[in-house]
């Protein structure tokens, strides 16, 4: 379970300060798929960065499975991240000159997974995204959709409990985007991993168990799937400055 308790993030010093997040609290149960929705600059990416330990909260707590990662030393946060979570980005961030195999191998190397176990894990991840035939191909020779599938293979190779996806379909056409979405939700359901998607895409957000709407650094609303599917009118939101929702 991921729990954000009164998390605030302020950038800058003295007069030049900017509050990216203000007193945000939310509980995300294990295995949920969550869409973090909001306009550009609303603070959704900052929220993801703080949840993943990539950024530090100015105040508040980020409790994952009972541990407040804000109190962790950098080395412990790195280790925690390498063993617990993974990322998918809009820009794929695959290493073009490396083979697909070596791209997927990176998280295993970082997590110091023994060499003898790696091959099977990499092949399984590539097979899960349908790239088993491409394992010796260079990443730069893949299409955009294949690159994102490769990024997913890299993200899931280590069986992370939490998967962060930052605009995963933002650079893809709708057909390819849907295939990527399918892969993400498949992983979420089959592995029971928590999927946190930062997106502008309403269709993608509607497929998630829960939607967290961010506006001006605050939680504007939190909607569960039930609320989303029962709606007949356009999605209404209820203001929740300190919202907590359990599914």
């Amino acid at each position, binding site marked *: 379970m991921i729990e954000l308790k009164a998390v605030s993030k302020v950038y800058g010093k003295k007069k030049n300060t900017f509050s990216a997040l203000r007193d945000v609290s939310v509980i995300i149960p294990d295995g949920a798929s969550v869409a973090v929705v909001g306009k550009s600059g609303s603070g959704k990416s900052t929220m993801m960065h703080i949840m993943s330990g*990539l950024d530090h909260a100015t105040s508040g707590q980020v409790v994952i499975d009972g541990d407040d990662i804000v109190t962790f030393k950098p080395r412990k946060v*790195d280790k925690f991240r390498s063993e617990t979570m993974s990322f998918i980005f809009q820009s794929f961030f695959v290493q073009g000159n490396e083979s697909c195999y*070596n791209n997927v191998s990176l998280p295993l190397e970082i997590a110091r997974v023994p060499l003898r176990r790696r091959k099977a894990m990499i092949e399984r991840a590539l097979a899960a995204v349908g790239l088993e035939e491409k394992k010796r191909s260079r990443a730069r020779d893949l299409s955009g959709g294949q690159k994102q599938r490769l990024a997913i293979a890299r993200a899931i190779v280590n069986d992370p409990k939490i998967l962060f996806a930052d605009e995963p379909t933002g650079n893809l056409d709708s057909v390819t985007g849907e295939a990527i979405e399918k892969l993400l939700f498949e992983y979420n359901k089959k592995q029971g991993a928590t999927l946190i998607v930062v997106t502008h895409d309403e269709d993608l957000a509607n497929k998630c168990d829960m939607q967290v709407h961010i506006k001006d650094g605050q939680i504007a609303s939190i909607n569960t799937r039930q609320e989303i599917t029962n709606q007949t009118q356009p999605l209404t939101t209820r203001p929740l400055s300190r919202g907590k929702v359990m599914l």
Partner: protein
Amino acid sequence: MRAIDVMRRAARNLRQAKGRTILTSLAIGVGAFTLTLSLAAGEGAREYADNLLKNNIDPQALFIVKDKSVTSTDAGNGIREYSDDLSSTSAASGRGVAIQTMTNDDIVKLRSRNDLSQVIPIYSLTAKYVVFAGNSKKYYTPLTYYDATTVSDVVAGSLPSLGNQINDNEILVPEQYLETLSLSAQDLVGKTVTITVSQSVATPSQDEIQQAFLNGGNTAVEELVKPKTKDFTYTVRAILKKPTLAIASNPRLHVSTNAAAELYSYSTKGSSNEDKFIGVTALAKGDPTKAKDDIQNSLGYSVQTAKDAQGLLFTFVNILQGIVAGFAGLALIASVFGIINTQYISVLERTSQIGLMKALGMRRRDIAKLFRYEAGWIGFLGGLVGVGLALLLGFLANPWITKTLDLSGQSLLVFVWWQILVLIVSLVIVAIIAGWFPARKAARLDPIEALRTE
């Protein structure tokens, strides 16, 4: 991340930027090439010098002089207190300054010592001219005396067994003279050689001139002030083969030590150098170093052993090697900046990749290690390229150098495997140090900022 994974990933990263890697490696390769060659040349020169001394100087040989300035590299300030045994003969000292010479008393003292044998004064011999039988021309040639303690080869005639002198009426001619004399070696053996020696004339006093005039008029006075000469005739015993490893490259006529004494005695008679010698050569009966210390302590003479001569030569070689290595060091410093520049560019180009690695939990120190290892690989490749080229050059050029410099099979470039190994390891370390700052920059990148970089 395990070191082996970092190392493999670093190697792959370099392979992906082949052009840049090769160019940066070449920069360090230039330094490696020069250093390898300077090490090889130094080793070759030392080996050559070692062989040279073994072939030319008896390990028991001692060079004994009274004046320490002869064996010292310090030329002094030119002024010194006068004494009767000072000789100002520049030809004798080769320095053009007054030196304290040995007298017959000194020679006797040294010959009476139990730890020395074959004490021979150093005769500075100068012939006015030399005439070879069968050739009407007069020649100037340098003269010396035969060293019975070293092995010499002949192209014609024969030499006495090692340790024995040639006869006093015999002379040895170097092979190199044959072409000028238009004679074959066989033809020259048995022929006579006449050496004409001038006698230094002391300026006659007024009384001597008056006495000569009274006795024989102007003719007698002219005879008194006229330089005297004397012919000494010898028979060619053998033609000396050109030594393959010779310290002194100029060939000389060799007479026996007794004949040398006679020639020296005649040429210096009446001059300030009469019965004076720069020093002596001798053979130590036991440990040369012990004999050297004993002589220095008891007589206050300056003594050089064969080992000291070797040390002097090695110092010279080391200085030359140091100069070349200095230039190679400059090349290496330049290449270090090349590595720093390349790695900084690499960090900039791979900012988003660094961000991803950090997001996936790669530690700062592992990211720094990745860039340091990349720099280390560049150093290693540069070292291999430089050393490889130097080895290739050595392989191709050694036979030519040996032939051109007439080193008789001795290679000038001698490669020592452990030196090459140390060099490559050092280059890797230097490269890693050069990669330190770019690596630190990479490690300190903010992952969020890095991920925003396209």
